[in-house]
């Protein structure tokens, strides 16, 4: 078997396995660490699709940023020990009915669609093209996204510092 195929199956298994563990884990910190493996597996799958920039961004933003934020949140809000945090499974019957229908629909789509497979061609590096596109054709959406994030940061700061209005 080819090495890339082997790697693909390995990372797919890692992604799906850790995602399943995350969903069924009763311990919220264990779930967060399982999420880390899922995100890393997805990043590795991006690499196998020659999307190196997206893969690095995935790790930087999700693993290095959001996941640490989640862990911080969990650890600080429950005073470091998560034993008193209850996780329950509720509404089991309606959920299983809906999810069976969704799964059936997805499997039907998967089996009936013809999947066009492109020839494998390694691109000459993605980052130059991305940079040119972002700063030429899509400069306005790019800048607007920046402003949106800035507004979000200011809003978060405002909420966190609890500014007292003087009447």
């Amino acid at each position, binding site marked *: 078997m*080819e090495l890339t195929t082997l790697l693909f199956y390995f990372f797919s298994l890692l992604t799906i396995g850790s995602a399943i563990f995350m969903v069924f884990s009763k311990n919220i910190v264990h779930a967060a*660490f399982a999420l880390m493996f899922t995100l890393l597996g997805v990043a590795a799958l991006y690499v196998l699709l020659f999307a190196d920039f997206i893969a*690095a*961004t995935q*790790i930087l933003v999700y693993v*290095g940023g959001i*996941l640490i934020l989640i862990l911080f949140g969990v*650890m600080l809000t429950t005073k470091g020990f998560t034993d008193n945090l209850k996780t329950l499974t509720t509404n089991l019957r309606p959920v299983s009915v809906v999810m069976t229908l969704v799964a059936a629909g997805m499997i039907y789509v998967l089996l009936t669609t013809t999947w066009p497979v492109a020839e494998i061609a390694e691109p000459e590096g993605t980052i130059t093209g991305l940079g040119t596109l972002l700063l030429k054709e899509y400069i306005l959406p790019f800048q607007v996204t920046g402003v949106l994030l800035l507004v979000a940061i200011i809003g978060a700061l405002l909420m966190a510092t609890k500014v007292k209005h003087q009447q």
Partner: protein
Amino acid sequence: MTWLESLPLAVFVMIPLVIILIYALFAIWMERKVAGFIQDRLGPMRVGGWHGWAQSFADLLKLIQKEDIIPAEASKFLFRFAPFLMFAASYAAFAVIPFSSAYMGSNIDIGVFYLLAITSLLTISVIMAGWASNNKWSLLGAMRTAAQMVSYEVPTIMAVLSVIIVAGSLNLMTVTEMQSGNDTLGFLPNWLIFQNPFLLVAFVIFFISILAESHRVPFDLPESESELVAGFQTEYSGMRWAMFMLAEYADMLLLSLLGAVLFFGGWNSPFGGFMDGPIWGFFWFMFKGMILVFVMMWIRWTLPRYRVDQLMYLCWSILIPLSFINFVLIALWEMLF
């Protein structure tokens, strides 16, 4: 390519590991010697004869023999896994370091961006170790580390970005190649630190930030022994503790080598064409890296530790605004000249 044909690839991938292991044995001995000399002692003198050169080997043998203790209430899998994740994160980053003009793990375009992304796993591994130990010192140490590393990532990235503006490429091999030659002011090498006055400021910011990122003194709050026993490593013993030590030294080397590439010309010889070539290139590169490592050790044994609030003040109120202003000034300088 079948998996048997990829065996040479495996050997190719292992080269940095050999470098790191030899370096770690040397650096631990060197750290003790430097500490000794700074404190007017001799440091290790007995093991192996000449100036105690075999001290690290003796320590390694001792650590291998030790019992692997796992606390009863610890989260077993995460506790076992954290040291290896930490070393894997450091080691993965070595893929994009150009050790010489002939050897670089992966010549990818996003080079330094990948390096910064993958080292963010270090923070996760510290939290993992701290939480899994189920010990208040470990958890406090881990929280401090996470806060410190996340904060200091910002000035590090800004300093690296300043260099990238001047160099115009994220690929560290390209960045190194454009620093060859000795034309600055007629005799100085074309290293980036001599190219732009604001890059000197960027280097100072970068160096302070990497001290904090690799949690060395004066920013070693995660394992400040006077308050937290040993921080996130408190419950670790034997080889797992040794993995943490190895990861810490690998991280020091990684960030020093990154500094050498970004500011001091990587594998370029300081004498232009003299003593040049792939083998000399490797020598110069490691030499520059080791000088930065030495400065880190020198600082460790000379300066006292910062307080947590001072650490955060230094980062958010001084380094981050300064690095943003510096970034704009470097961009201006590049536009004008």
